[in-house]
């Protein structure tokens, strides 16, 4: 971590974002502060000594849940010769705990005034994003050495309580300590900032429920992280950066775990820090899929939690239907007063078929048929939803059109920005829109649902029906979406059944789902590896040459690591092992430029032009499905595929990677090891840095190793 920029620490959906000296001084739209359950509990937390703010010498994020700030008095000077050191060590829990230490290096005693200014705007995360005004009232109580900040709007009440281990003078704007430190002595205090929700206990009574002070505790969180890392498979690889990236991914995935109140302490992947530390249908499912060979328990919790929240009603405000899997759940003030629909909001159309895909893939890896039986009803309801509620145009294809026109999502597929779906000439189609990858997911859900129906639910009639429907869908899809003059599948069908005819990365998802006729797969692989889509790092979301192509357009030209990992999986499914390895090489090279932490997206510039991946500016990092990407790429490189109670290993490694071992892979087989080695010896090139995929290498042949 550098001494500039923001420092983020978190535990579940409680997180602190501060500047490099540990201070928080947020305006409404600044994404800094102490946040919990989508509410900002502290928007000001500024340390001064004798009225002066402090200078950061260094900042360490010791773990994802704690950070340490080394500070000295005085700002703005190059030369620092201080007789005083200040150390802030902060750990997030239910709120945060901060240990402040002052060291006097002088031979004389010092007398200092140490001050924390504190305030909260209790903003909803949506308000921070959209700069909305508050409707409730604030109050502050300073008594008995504690400062309590409150916000109240009708029955919605939130509070922040600040206390210290050393007696402070408390006023409505903060805490002041009068400190004397002996020569070469030190002074210390511990501060606790605790969040609170006021809960109704009767029609007229209520009480304030504070979070457990100190959260899970630092040592417990450390032990938890060690256990998380210790139970994950180990990676051995002669290409050093992969080990670094793998470890970074595991640690970030640990940080992104989120324990919804109903999951009994178990966790699922949240979507990203800081804005998306909540349950998202799509992101939680994709990340659980990516992590299956490593952390299958994430998938179990995702299935359980999303299944429990499955839609049961027709509710236009929430875009809810019976059987639909949620898009996003939020706990803040705006959803509470139905000014936003996220209680939960159901406006995505891919999460529901993907729910069935995850359930099946989970069973294939773990053999946990009990979970499949337990969620039979939810899976059937999801399958029913595809035909009953998602076919808006009555043409046998999933399509979307929001019913909440005020605050619902326009694009309900993963490319959810306003301009992501366009014709070649740049025009945008009307609604409903039937994007192609949705049909692939629906096909896969039916095929996998049939397998589960036959194997676990003992309903061969359902299995037969689903298989018939899947075959019919595949036949129609290959006819209706095929762009003959380009030899690829259209991005979507519009309301008139016309093709939205751009070339996009979505065709890679189609390979993953298996909906592509074998005779068409080669052409798709050619496009995915061709100059218009493949940048050298990965596959662009939209092909160069399309009217809306922009190498730094969110879904119209950038490269998304998550997208590429699914594409690599798809290429493997159709036997394009070496092509999958080329994509793995590009993305893993890119990861190395970001110290192992892949961003959500990076620029679609040609690799030979920029030489390094240009990060797309985004507020969210780490992002769950970017974090899961190296995990899925390990799977595709090694060709891991469950087959009955066995794990098939069929490696196809990028050139330059040497040998690769993945040890202790959990699954229905117990634990198993997988090995891969490139056949050709690595040629050592003189280069700026050792990279796997530069310049675009010819695919190499690899040996097959047995597990």
């Amino acid at each position, binding site marked *: 971590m550098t001494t500039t920029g923001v420092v983020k620490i978190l535990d579940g959906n409680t997180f602190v974002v501060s500047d490099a000296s540990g201070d928080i001084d947020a305006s409404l739209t600044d994404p800094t502060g102490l946040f919990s359950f989508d509410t900002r509990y502290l928007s000001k937390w500024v340390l001064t000594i004798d009225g002066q703010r402090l200078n950061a010498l260094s900042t360490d994020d010791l773990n994802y849940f704690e950070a340490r700030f080394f500070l000295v008095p005085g700002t703005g000077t190059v030369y620092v010769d201080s007789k005083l050191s200040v150390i802030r060590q902060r750990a997030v829990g239910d709120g945060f705990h901060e240990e402040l230490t002052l060291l006097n290096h002088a031979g004389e005693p010092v007398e200092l005034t140490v001050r924390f200014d504190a305030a909260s705007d209790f903003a909803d995360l949506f308000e921070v994003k959209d700069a909305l005004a508050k409707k409730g009232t604030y109050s502050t109580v300073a008594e008995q050495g504690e400062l309590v900040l409150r916000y109240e709007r009708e029955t919605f009440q939130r509070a922040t309580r600040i206390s210290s281990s050393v007696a402070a003078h408390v006023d409505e704007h903060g805490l002041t300590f009068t400190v004397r430190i002996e020569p070469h002595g030190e002074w210390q205090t511990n501060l606790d900032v605790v969040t609170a929700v006021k809960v109704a206990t009767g029609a007229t009574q*209520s009480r304030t429920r504070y979070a457990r002070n100190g959260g899970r505790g630092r040592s417990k969180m450390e032990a938890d992280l060690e256990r998380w890392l210790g139970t994950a498979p180990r990676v051995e690889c002669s290409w050093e950066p992969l080990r670094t990236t793998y470890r970074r991914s595991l640690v970030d995935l640990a940080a992104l775990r989120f324990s919804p109140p*109903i999951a009994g302490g178990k966790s699922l992947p949240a979507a990203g820090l800081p804005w998306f530390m909540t349950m998202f249908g799509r992101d939680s499912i994709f990340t659980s899929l990516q992590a299956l060979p490593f952390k299958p328990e994430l998938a179990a919790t995702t299935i359980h939690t999303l299944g429990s929240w*499955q839609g*049961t*009603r*027709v509710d236009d405000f929430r875009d809810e239907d019976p059987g639909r899997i949620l898009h996003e759940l939020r706990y803040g003030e705006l959803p509470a007063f139905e000014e936003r629909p996220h*209680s939960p909001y159901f406006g995505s159309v891919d999460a529901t078929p993907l729910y069935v895909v995850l359930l099946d893939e989970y069973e294939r890896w773990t053999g946990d048929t009990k979970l499949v039986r337990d969620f039979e009803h939810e899976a059937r309801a999801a399958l029913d939803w595809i035909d009953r509620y998602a076919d808006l145009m009555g043409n046998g294809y999933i399509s979307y059109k929001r019913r909440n026109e005020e605050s619902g999502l326009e694009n309900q597929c993963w490319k959810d920005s306003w301009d992501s779906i366009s014709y070649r000439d740049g025009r945008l189609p009307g609604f409903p829109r039937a994007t192609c990858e949705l049909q692939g997911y629906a096909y896969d859900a039916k095929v996998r649902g049939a397998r589960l129906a036959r194997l676990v639910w003992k309903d061969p009639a359902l299995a037969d029906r689903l298989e018939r429907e899947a075959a019919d869908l595949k036949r129609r899809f290959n006819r209706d979406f095929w762009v003959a003059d380009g030899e690829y599948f259209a991005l979507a069908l519009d309301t008139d059944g016309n093709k939205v005819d751009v070339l996009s990365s979505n065709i890679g998802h189609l390979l993953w789902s298996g909906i592509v006729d074998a005779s068409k797969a080669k052409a798709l692989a050619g496009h995915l590896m061709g100059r218009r889509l493949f940048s050298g790092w990965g596959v662009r979301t939209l092909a160069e040459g399309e009217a809306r192509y922009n190498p730094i357009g969110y879904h119209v030209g950038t490269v998304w690591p998550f997208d590429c990992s699914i594409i690599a999986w798809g290429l493997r499914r159709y036997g394009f092992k070496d092509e999958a390895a080329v994509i793995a090489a590009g993305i893993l090279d890119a990861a190395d430029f970001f110290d192992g932490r892949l961003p959500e997206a990076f620029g679609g510039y040609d690799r030979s032009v920029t030489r390094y991946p240009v990060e797309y500016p985004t507020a969210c990092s780490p992002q769950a499905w970017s974090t899961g990407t190296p995990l899925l790429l390990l799977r595709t490189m090694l060709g891991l595929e469950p087959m009955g109670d066995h794990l098939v290993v069929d490696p196809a490694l990028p050139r330059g990677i040497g040998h690769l071992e993945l040890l202790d892979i959990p699954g229905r087989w117990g634990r198993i090891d997988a090995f891969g080695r490139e056949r050709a010896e690595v040629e050592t090139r003189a280069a700026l840095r050792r990279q796997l995929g530069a310049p675009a290498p010819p695919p190499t042949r690899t040996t097959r190793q047995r597990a």
Partner: protein
Amino acid sequence: MTDTRATSDAATMFFEGLAGREREHLLAKARGTVRVELTNGAQSEPWLVTIDRGDVTVSRGSAEADCTLRTSRELFEQIAAGKVNAVAAVLRGAVAIEGNWHLLVLFQRLFPGPSGAAAATGETGVGESSR
């Protein structure tokens, strides 16, 4: 499920609609008791819903329960009529919840949507039939 009471308020109708349901899929994994306390001034009207793997029985009266949902009778009637969303009401503190949250998440699926149509139920899947 016969309406022996002369009342026709939404809260009472909701509970009477639950009583005697068998193999309710939305509660197929649930086992436990939900106490719903409806307050009206100083008065409290307790309902006890017992769920046993989808079989539901309803009784009046107070007893120990795995989870409790407490709110004014007035608000609950709006929830039972589909006019107010229960989850949002919990988030803003207008409905108090205690105990097993997972059971409450499953239970809230039984409330009707804003169209007034009751939550779908049935043997063959959600959405198969609506009451």
